[in-house]
């Protein structure tokens, strides 16, 4: 059995990279991929933690939920991206500053 | 213990090599066969010049392809363009790993074999898209688009058709599914052996042969099999669902820009995919490695044609039956290609969403009720 610590370290690193992508990249599609990576990091943690669990499989079930939620998220996000692109003509987050006060 | 493990691993490696060799040699000759079949359908002779009856024609083509220059068009995404055929071929070839080639010869006896095979198709889609995109060609991208739409849609009826078998057999393991249809093996988990329930065929296992096949045991599965066959045609981009590479419209679809060795690999992957779905169909519905002949009293045709389990003869017989059945299906696919006209895109989608999907859902319900009834 692989130590849970290792899974957690991998998850943490993946999460860090995903977060960095979300924070740094300008293209919305990259941000979306970063979110997928973050979700995957969470999944790795869950699966790693439920290695010894042969009865309830809670971690695996949670991961399954995460996967489904990720799929939903991707669908909605892409629909929004398409609308965004239609309206704003760009997928660059630097150009989308409508939330700014002035 | 270690030695035993090693032996098992060796057998698996052997199986994989046999699989690879099978595909490589099969592809060469199936292309020849395709030409010949098309020729017979169209009432002409086909390749006749190279070798006796043109047997070596494909070999010559292959040599020509290997010699060709590896052209990457200007404006193409270099790395993606090069990686796409590899992704496709790797995906398809991975599928053979968990396919039982003979009763005891299987690359990876994983518990989620059927599921895994279905996931292969998903990766294949990605390869198709990358190939079409990276070519930087309108026809390619159009072909890739159509291909993705088609494959993603047809994945649903395909999965549901498989699901109706899985519900009945109660396992995702292809090896178990294969053994369930075997004349002499009784697995612990099996409760549903008698064709048409508890009918006169109480001793079906002893009769063996075609009577232990899933398609005979559960006769309504023939609908599922038809759906599976149609959907698998669409998954392989074969006629009449070959709109992603419709020659008359898109030159050659997503692989328009490919040439030489990469084209050969794409071609190989396509034919390998055909064989893969045929094998899957055979394992799921048509008895897998099992003989079609039943025991008729003293004339024990089934025993004679399946060998003794554990002996090499059973493996040999099993391999023979599996491959011959699969080739039968492949032949059917070819006949379909040269017989039916191509569908329009809207007809394609209509067929998938409004015809196949509801029917396959009903079939899943049917199998669920069948299982429920048998468990009562």
């Amino acid at each position, binding site marked *: 059995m692989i130590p849970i610590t290792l899974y957690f370290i991998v998850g943490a690193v993946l999460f860090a990279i995903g977060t960095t992508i*979300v*924070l*740094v990249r300008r293209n919305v599609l990259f*941000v979306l991929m970063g979110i997928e990576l973050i979700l995957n990091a969470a999944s790795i943690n869950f699966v790693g933690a439920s290695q010894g669990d042969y009865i309830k499989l809670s971690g695996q079930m949670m991961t399954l939920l995460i996967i489904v939620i990720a799929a939903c998220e991707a669908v909605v996000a892409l629909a929004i991206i398409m609308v965004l692109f239609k309206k704003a003509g760009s997928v660059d987050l*630097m150009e*989308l*500053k409508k*939330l*700014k*006060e002035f | 213990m270690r030695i035993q493990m090693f032996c098992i691993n060796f057998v698996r490696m052997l199986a994989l090599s046999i699989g690879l060799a099978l595909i490589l040699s099969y592809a060469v000759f199936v292309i020849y066969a395709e030409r010949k079949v098309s020729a017979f359908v169209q009432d002409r002779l086909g390749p006749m010049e190279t070798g006796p009856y043109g047997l070596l024609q494909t070999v010559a083509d292959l040599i020509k392809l290997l010699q060709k220059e590896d052209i990457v068009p200007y404006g193409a995404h270099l790395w993606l363009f090069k990686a796409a055929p590899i992704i496709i071929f790797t995906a398809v070839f991975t599928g053979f790993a968990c396919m039982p080639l003979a009763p005891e010869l299987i690359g990876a006896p994983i518990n989620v074999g059927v599921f895994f095979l279905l996931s292969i198709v998903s990766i294949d889609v990605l390869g198709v898209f990358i190939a079409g995109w990276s070519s930087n060609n309108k026809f390619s991208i159009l072909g890739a688009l159509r291909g993705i739409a088609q494959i993603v849609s047809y994945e649903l009826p395909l999965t549901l058709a498989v699901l109706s078998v899985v519900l009945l057999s109660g396992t995702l393991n292809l090896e178990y599914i294969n053994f369930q249809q075997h004349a002499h093996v009784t697995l612990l988990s099996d409760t549903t052996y008698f064709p048409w329930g508890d009918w006169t065929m109480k001793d079906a296992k002893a009769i063996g042969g075609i009577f232990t096949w899933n398609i005979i045991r559960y006769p309504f599965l023939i609908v599922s099999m038809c759906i599976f066959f149609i959907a698998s045609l669409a998954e392989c981009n074969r006629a009449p669902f070959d709109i992603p590479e419709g020659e008359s419209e898109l030159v050659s679809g997503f692989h328009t820009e490919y040439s030489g060795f990469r084209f050969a690999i794409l071609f190989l992957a396509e034919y390998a995919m055909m064989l893969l779905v045929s094998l899957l169909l055979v394992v799921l519905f048509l008895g897998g490695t099992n003989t079609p002949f039943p025991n008729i009293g003293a004339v024990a045709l089934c025993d004679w044609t399946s060998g003794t389990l554990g002996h090499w003869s059973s493996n040999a017989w099993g391999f023979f039956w599996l491959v011959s059945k699969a080739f039968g299906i492949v032949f059917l696919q070819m006949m379909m290609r040269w017989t039916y006209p191509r569908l329009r895109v809207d007809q394609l989608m209509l067929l998938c969403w409004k015809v196949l999907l509801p029917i396959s859902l009903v079939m899943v319900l049917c199998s669920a009720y069948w299982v429920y009834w048998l468990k009562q």
Partner: protein
Amino acid sequence: MNPLQHTDPMLLPAHFLHSVALTIFFLPVLTFVILFFTGKHISTSWRSWLATSVVGLMFILSLYVHLSVDVPIIARWSWFSMGTLHMTSGMVLSSFTTSMLVVVTAIALMVHLYSMEYMKDRRNHSKFFPYLALFISAMIGIILSDSLFNIFIFWELVGLASYLLIGFWYQKKEAAAAAKKAFLYNKAADTAFVIALGLIFTYYGTTELTLLRTLISSSSILVPTGIAISIAVLLVLSTFGKSAQFPFYVWLPDAMEGPTPVSALLHAATMVAAGILVLIKCDFLLVEQMRWVLVWTGAITALLAAIQAIRCYDSKKILAFSTVSQIGYMMMAIGTGNTSAAYFHLGTHAFFKAGLFLSVGAVIHTMHHIQQNSFKNKIYLEVDTLDIRLMGGFRKTMPIAFYAYVACYAALIGIPFFTGFLSKETILASLLQNPTYSIPFGMALTTVGITAYYMTRQLYWMFLGDFRLAALYPSCKEEQRKIKENHWLINIPLIVLACTTLSFFVSFHPFHASDIHWMKAPLPIVGGSTSIYLPIASISITLIGVLLAWSMASKEQLYNWKQYWFWTFVQQNYGIEKAVQFVFIIPSFLIARGLTYLDKIIDMWVNAQAYLAVLLAHIVYAIDRFLIEGVLKGIVFLIRIVGSSFRSLIQGQVQSYISTTLIVLALMFWWYLRQLH
């Protein structure tokens, strides 16, 4: 005594028949809800058939209930409670209430059948049947309720429904005005009801009629005589409004602006009957002095209304006046203490008056069609289709309507072998029994003759002679030839109602109503014919009236008759409206005008205060503006400087927001995990 005593009535379990009766009550409610809210989304015929079949079902159920009820059964259940006050509502099923139920549903069924054809192409049809359903439902509520409180609710609902139906063609100015008039006169009378209700509740502690009856008969609660008289006066006044008695009756003739089936229902079974019903129910509350008033009012109303009918040319108004005068008879009967006679007359009157209205309506319907057809032929006849001067000759063209009319006519004027004769004789007999009522008896007898006169006149002008419209307008000659019997949906109610006016319908004895067989004697008939002279006298007076009318009718100047001041006075409702104007309305306006000046004086004082306040406000404003706001602005200025320095961090980008969130999240994690250590 403690004026706020409260008697908790005993709750009584409901019988099966009560649920049937409740079903009868709620069926029209259901019809109302469905038809009102579906509105024009369902077709006219569907609407009519739905409403009519529901009423038919109600009729059958009512018959069942009536035949099942033997001794009176009462159900009483808790309605609501406020603190220690527990209100109950009760339902009484006796042969009296159930027979009234049968009468109302039977008339309603006839009217519905009739309306299906009559109202088919009329304007605003989608609202007609729901309103009718409301009307009937409220009426059934009055019949069945045992609690005066509930009766009051339904009483008001009847008023509302009649308002809606009288003003049914509210686009017509006259119809709207008539509806308003009916509503206001009713409201004025209803105020008396409210006060009476309050008095009863205060002094007897309950409004349950059954309980009240036992309380009063056993004299367990002693109420001051003045209060008892006031209650009786107020109750009688309120019924005067609803039942159209002098001087409130002026709304009834105007109410003829409503559709004819509505008039039939209103006069026969619902609106005007409600007052009589309540009086019969509250009979034990009437003190002796009030009985005298009732007899006199009834006699005066009967006579005055009958006189008004003599010179009336509106076919429906004649019938309206006759209703008023017949209700006067009922009032007299109640006044003499013979409530059963009043009820008897109410029942018989319901059938023959409905028949009269419906048969006159059949003629009006035909007239209306003639007018419509001439409109279609581009001939614009602006004639009053109700005017009997334009009718005539329908005896040959519409025999069914004619014979139905004749049957009901005979019943009304009191020809033997018809029901009206029996009930009228009973009332006259009970009047005759008390020698103090000799003058009212004389007036009633006179009214019999006048009734015979004006009804014969109407019969003559409407059905006999020539078709005068065609004589006036030659363009109608073509239409005259096309006149034929109406649709069967109109004729069937006519035939049924004509049959119910025959005397054996209520009594096997043609001259004496001692055994009312189908009514199962809802109330014991007292009196009856005491001497042979009374019927002879009344029949001879009737015959005189008929013959006089017959001889006068042909000579009557139709269009340019001499206007005597007397007839003008009669036609202006004996100046009742003018009296109301002078006694109530003009003084009210004068008082209001005087109060306006008072108000202006008060205003001046208020205005002075306001000016002071404004002045103060200006001072406060100056302080606020320069002192407080200056401080505030300074603070805001400071905050803005600080804010703008921080604002540069937020650039409107999603990512910067996310980063801030994440930093906070990380710190929270840090803190949380430290706690775990």
